[in-house]
């Protein structure tokens, strides 16, 4: 579905990402992890097509992303940015913006089908009860769910998310990631998400891409990437990795200075 070859890109003359190579198959749930400033968000922006590449190609379904018509791309790929600006639209109007890529030329109003799709997306994300409220007034967790509902309205095949759980309490962290997992498993949506929290990443993703200083450090299943050697190498801190007894996924314990003896 997605193929990235020899990608180098960055802002102005600084290269934030170098020699990135990986492939994403349809139906995968991929987590991009790494320390602050390692280039996670930059990689996501490059895939979404808003960042010009210095070198290399990103092929989406076999086509070079900059060559794909923007509207067509938006029908296949949806992006949930981290903390994007919102306006005073109601939640329902906001979710309906996700239908814009499906509008015909000279179409100004949503069809009945558009309204149904929006309603389904809001039902799926549990945001129907917010429909009449202005987006700028709802809480951070609700906003994240509304953003996902908008993305679903685009009926994408690939969903990109930038730290969907940042600043959320654990209730909403689990709610958001459970939802994304469900979309991935039941609807076959391919997911690429940047995650800051290694434990959440290990718990939910099928494959992790660990970035360090703008390069790929390791790619693989959570069990292979989240080992104490790898983490200590990249994050320069001491950790202890155990297994979550319920999910059999790796779980990382931090070791404070006092405990390192």
């Amino acid at each position, binding site marked *: 579905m997605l193929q990235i070859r020899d990608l180098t890109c960055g802002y102005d003359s600084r290269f934030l990402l170098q020699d990135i190579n990986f492939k994403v198959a349809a139906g995968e749930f991929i987590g991009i992890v790494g320390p602050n400033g390692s280039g996670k968000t930059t990689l996501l922006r490059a895939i979404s097509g808003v960042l010009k590449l210095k070198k290399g190609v990103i092929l989406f379904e076999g086509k070079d992303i900059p060559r794909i018509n923007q509207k067509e791309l*938006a029908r296949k790929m949806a992006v949930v940015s981290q903390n*994007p600006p919102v306006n*005073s639209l109601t939640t329902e109007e906001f979710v309906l913006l996700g239908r814009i890529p499906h509008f015909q030329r000279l179409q100004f109003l949503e069809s009945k089908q558009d309204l149904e799709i929006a309603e389904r997306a809001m039902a799926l994300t549990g945001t129907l009860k917010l429909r009449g409220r202005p987006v700028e007034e709802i809480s951070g967790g609700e906003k994240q769910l509304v953003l996902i509902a908008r993305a679903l309205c685009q009926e994408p095949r690939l969903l990109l998310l930038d730290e969907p759980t940042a600043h959320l309490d654990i209730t909403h962290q689990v709610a958001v990631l459970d939802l994304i997992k469900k979309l991935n498993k039941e609807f076959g949506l391919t997911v690429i998400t940047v995650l800051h929290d290694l434990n959440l990443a290990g718990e939910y993703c099928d494959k992790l891409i660990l970035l360090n200083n703008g390069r790929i450090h390791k790619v693989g299943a959570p069990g292979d990437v989240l080992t104490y050697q790898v983490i200590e190498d990249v994050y320069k801190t001491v950790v202890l990795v155990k297994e979550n007894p319920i999910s059999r996924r790796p779980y990382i314990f931090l070791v404070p200075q006092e405990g390192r003896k």
Partner: protein
Amino acid sequence: MNKKILYWIVWMLGLGAALLVISVFSLCAGSVGMPIKKIISLILEGKSSAEYSILLDIRLPRIILGFAIGGALSLAGVILQGMFRNPLVEPYTLGISGGAALGVCLNIVLRLHRFWGVLTLPLFGFLGAIVVISLIYFLNIRKGILKMQGLLLTGVMLSFISSSIIMLLMAVSRTEDLQGIIFWIMGSLEEPNWLLIKVAVIVSVLGLIVSYFFSLSLNALSLGEEEARHLGVNTEKAKRLLFILASVLTGLSVSVCGVIGFVGLIVPHFVRSFVGSDNRILLGSSFLAGACFLILCDTLARTIIAPLELPVGVITGILGGSVFVYVLAKKTVS
């Protein structure tokens, strides 16, 4: 039919009716009061009376012009507010009107309109407007992100610069030009040239139609450029065309009526609180509401100290400035 669309239609019809009522009221009101019955009989009887000429040569053109300019300024306000994501920006507060005024002023001083026709006035207004709008955009953009804090300040400063250059032009211009500039700069709907009135109506209505092609892009742009791109909007193209449209509308308004401030601020502000922020209804209803508002203000300007007359810019300035301060105060609280 969808409930929302029904609501929109009701709003548009309501505003259309209000426009009609206000226009008739404005025809009646003035230093020579005329009841509706008399107006109808005057129109049926035809020319030759003094009252007929007051009605059709003085009051009617002002109403038509109020419709065109009130609509154009409000439309420009909605477009700019959508693009800059700030409810306080409009042609006047961003200094675009000032730029347009400078363009027109240059034209008057250089007497270009005498050689190349009166239509060079709106053209120069447009050129002045687009220079300011581009300056504001490029001065406030950093790494592809529009800085919101400096926006209004830049606008106010550009306004100062333009008005200072206008003063400079006035200081060195001939006495007969000077009177024209002063009269025009205060902002008035009195325009003896029918050609300009016709152009104003045609361009502003065309502007409204064109703006609808970008109503969805404007909705998406209100989330910022990057989000709009994620929604499949060609932001570069939309931005360029919307800048041009806002400049055309402002340049036209300023060249015909002088600087009439704050219409693009007050009208969308109140309309938005009734119909919401969806540009598909906001554009059309703001146009109509702006037309109503300016015709009403002009009627006020004509009658308040009749037979003398106030410049309409004074009235919109007092009303608009108050609304601006009110909105600003409310914004910092929340």
